[in-house]
């Protein structure tokens, strides 16, 4: 029963969702909104599970003095500060000028931006590895990437102008051609595959053939 009931619910909900796509009449036209609302309510309740798990794991680490337990103190202290301030400020805790807003603007956002900024360095290191001309495919990638990059900066066309090249082979034109023809075709092929993959996976889940997420075969 522990497996059959989730499978039954999944199957019914899956079929209802397929049907509602083709029926614009009430109540089918509201099902999507209702299910979204239910999901939001369940997810909002489940956040406590996550928060309690975070506290439990961190507290356990501190209690047992496991490696790097100092970080767990930081987690618990930060969690308590932001939660207490949020609750103390009541309904308008997200308004501009509140203490919660101050923490969000001057602590959370800079930290988040710092992590995002790391991406620039990782792009450089990944590009260096990807663009090494080790074989024909990698060389092709290197040449295409060079043409796209030179076409995206003004200096590319400026050099072409100095060399009196025909307009049709200006780097910006070649770059657009690569992006619009090869890149778009490749992306669309991937998108078609993804759409079919989603259909197939959904069918397996709805029909109860796919049970790995429930621990079945």
């Amino acid at each position: 029963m522990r497996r059959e009931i989730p499978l039954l619910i999944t199957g019914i909900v899956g079929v209802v969702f397929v049907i509602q796509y083709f029926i614009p009449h009430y109540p089918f036209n509201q099902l999507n909104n209702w299910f979204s609302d239910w999901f939001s309510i369940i997810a909002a309740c489940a956040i406590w599970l996550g928060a309690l798990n975070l506290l439990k794991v961190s507290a356990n680490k501190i209690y047992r003095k496991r490696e790097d337990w100092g970080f767990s103190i930081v987690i618990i202290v930060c969690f308590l500060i932001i939660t207490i301030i949020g609750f103390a400020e009541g309904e308008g805790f997200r308004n501009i000028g509140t203490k919660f807003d101050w923490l969000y603007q001057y602590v959370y956002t800079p930290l988040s931006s710092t992590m995002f900024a790391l991406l620039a360095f990782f792009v450089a290191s990944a590009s260096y590895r990807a663009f090494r001309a080790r074989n024909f495919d990698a060389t092709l990638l290197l040449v295409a990437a060079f043409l796209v990059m030179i076409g995206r900066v003004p200096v590319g066309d400026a050099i072409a102008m100095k060399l009196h090249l025909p307009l049709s082979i200006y780097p910006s034109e070649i770059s657009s051609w690569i992006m619009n023809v090869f890149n778009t075709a490749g992306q669309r092929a991937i998108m078609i595959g993804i759409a079919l993959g989603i259909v197939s996976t959904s069918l397996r889940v709805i029909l109860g053939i796919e049970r790995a997420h429930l621990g079945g075969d």
Partner: protein
Amino acid sequence: MRNSRVKVNGLFFVLISVFFYSGLSAEEPLIPNPEDTTKICIPRPPTNVLATDAVYDKGNVVNLNWVPSPDDNGDGKILQYQILRRLENDSVFALIDSVIAGTAFYKDETVESGQTYQYMVVAICDGGSGPSEPSPPVTPDMEWLNFALSNIFVIGLLICGSVIYFIGKAKSGRPLFIRKIAGLEAVDEAIGRATEMGRPILYVPGIQDMDDVQTIAGLTILGRVARVVADYDTKIKVPVSRSLVMTASRETLKAAYMAAGRPDAFNENMAQYITDEQFGYVAAVDGMIIRERPATTFFLGAFFAESLILAETGNSIGAIQIGGTANPAQLPFFVAACDFTLIGEELFAASAYLSGEPRQLGSLKGQDVGKALAMIAIVLGAITTTIGQAWNFEFISAIADLLNSLFRTN
């Protein structure tokens, strides 16, 4: 006493009125000079205002068409058309929107099914307006079937039918050829490596919630991976960014350990919630990678800007990495930083592929029918469009249009 107060108030009112009247009359005459016609503009109104209920909808759309004012000839005299609406029983029309001059169509998406409405279109010029006659009443209605999606219904039926057909065929025991997917062939090897090195495995099922099919695909693969991990008695860590994914991951891990006959080895802290915040989650997982140095990392699910940060950090510690997502923009990052990448559909095929179960493999074969359909439509579409445009064949162009509309959803 009372009379004298009334008198004083009356005098005050008269004085104020005289003051304002004299002020107005000094700058702006109440009666315009009939010789000054430059500021007077009375446009001819739009005609034939027709409101119709949109077909195949939820009863929330009315289409409005009209013949523009004869003065709307592109010289800028008509500035805009105002759309006015009233319920049939109301006496007053209320302004609901305005559109630019030269327009003869408006889609009202703010109506309620079952109510009866009337519309008026007013041509506006500088200083004047020309209202049309009210439209005949219209009552938007809900339809039971959206026939505009019949093409999608037929294609969906074909694809789903072929998937079910091949599942049935696979069940009968006939062997099916499935191409090898390098990333999935390497799963056992990657887990074995972690076992030999005595280091943990890190499994990241993306950063989206359970309502994303990529997360579901990630968890189904986790079920397969966890079973091998349980067999090999290796450590696995599943940091997640959503509470529901944490509970689902725990159930998946628990079931996999039980199926492998190792319920004692299961620990619910294997799946740990971090935070819903994208970069907070990335910072925590990066920290785990650096401190615990997993031998193998799996990044399978929905990823966004964090994909490269995670994969490059994993690469920097020399872990074997298997990445996969259905977000095309993130695939190049996984290709550059991971040893194996599951590209788009391979992510969804992975669970079936790893199970080796005929019914699941049959569903993969069914997908191929969809791909064949898409390929035929693309090739025929390219040929008919080229011929139709180059030689102006109407019949061929009609076929091209038909093919073009085959996969449209609106």
